[in-house]
């Protein structure tokens, strides 16, 4: 794009700017997203509104087109990296302003597996949806999950695996939780390319999440049920 064609984001009104941010997320334009986040903050938008109305909504559109086979992994990664740019600015402000928190999640890739693209996307989208996310990284033995659960007392435990050879380890973690009488204290969500609902059922997970958008919706559903149960108790 020539300089003459460059769009001055400052010249857009709020609605136009948010629409432009959705487009820029879709196109993976990190610098533009960072600039637009700064503009909205300067216009006295709350960090929470910038996050939800601009970034999360933009990523929701990306997620739909990924699910429908219009976008592919490289494009989703670019969009995620652009959102990350905005999140770096928003994260400390969200903490300062006491934005609403939906719940807490511990997430990690299981032992023997170093793949984290899907897990990272889920973590980022969960954070965007108002969850506190404790990311354990890759190659996690059951002890790592147990320690994190004890330390952070999450609502949700998320496990990810990309390999057929590593996905059975999720059952090791769930069985350990059962042995310790802790299984029912947490919602266990699992995901990863070779997984399916049948596998999630077989290992005793609460749900299989096909992608990051499904993970967020599933987590929100479980949190809503939990609140309803507490309210009616």
């Amino acid at each position, binding site marked *: 794009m020539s300089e003459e064609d460059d769009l001055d984001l400052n010249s857009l009104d709020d609605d136009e700017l948010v629409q432009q941010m959705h487009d820029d997320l879709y196109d*993976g334009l990190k610098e533009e997203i960072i600039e637009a986040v700064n503009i909205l903050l300067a216009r006295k938008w709350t960090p929470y509104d910038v996050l939800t109305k601009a970034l999360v909504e933009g990523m929701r559109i990306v997620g739909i087109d990924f699910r429908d086979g219009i976008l*592919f*992994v*490289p*494009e989703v*990664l*670019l969009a995620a*990296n652009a959102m990350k740019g905005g999140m770096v600015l928003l994260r400390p402000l969200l903490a300062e302003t006491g934005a609403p928190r939906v719940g807490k999640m511990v997430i990690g890739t299981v032992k*023997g*597996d*170093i*793949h*984290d*693209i899907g897990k990272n996307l889920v973590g980022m989208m969960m954070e965007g949806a108002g969850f506190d996310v404790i990311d354990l990284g*890759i*190659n996690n033995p059951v002890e790592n999950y147990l320690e994190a659960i004890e330390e952070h007392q999450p609502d949700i435990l998320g496990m990810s695996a*990309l*390999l*057929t*050879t590593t*996905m059975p380890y999720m059952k090791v973690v769930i069985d350990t939780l059962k042995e310790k009488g802790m299984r029912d204290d947490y919602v266990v969500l699992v995901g990863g*390319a*070779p*997984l*399916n609902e*049948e*596998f999630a059922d077989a290992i005793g997970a609460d749900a299989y999440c096909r992608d990051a958008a499904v993970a967020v919706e599933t987590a929100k559903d479980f949190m809503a049920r939990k609140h309803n149960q507490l309210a009616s108790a």
Partner: protein
Amino acid sequence: MELAPSEEFDFKRGKGDVLLIACGALAREIVALIELNGWTHLDVTCLPAKWHNTPQFIPDGVRKKIQEAKGNYTKIYCVYADCGTGGLLDKVLEEEGVERIAGPHCYSFFSGNDVFAEREDADMRAFFLTDYLARHFDKLIWQGLGLDRHPELLSDYFGNYEKLVFFAQVPDEKLQILARDAAKKLGLAYEYRETGFGDLATFMSAAEPA
């Protein structure tokens, strides 16, 4: 197993009465083994090798091939490992009564499934190439992952890897150069292991008519 070369048999599709339904990434090796061993009873049909990146297409693709072939062959075998289908391919094969080569993926059965499993921990941070993948690295991996257009995504994809291991089925200097170049492009250490055809040869030698 003895792989005695035969100059008398050039494989032609549509001749054998035992069908191998295989990943296109294995076609060259399968035909080489058929010709080396004079396995005239074997026929081969392949599905797209590019499904390496989208294994969700494999189970239905294999089912379609089986149903098209039933009645035309005395026996059908599947030359796919689980290949990232998470057991869904096995479900299809069980329903269709077709046996497949054992293993989680081709790197494993080329190495020998037992050998591969023993090295699982040591190779956890390894990215694998076979002859096919070395030959088609640029198209299938580099372009397939969008790295030609977005090299900045390299660390997203390969940041947790440390080495590239080239499992060579047939010693080939040119392929070794390609594999080494691939490792360099990905920023990984390079390791070469000559596997031969591994468990593929054993599986094919046992693929007999009903």
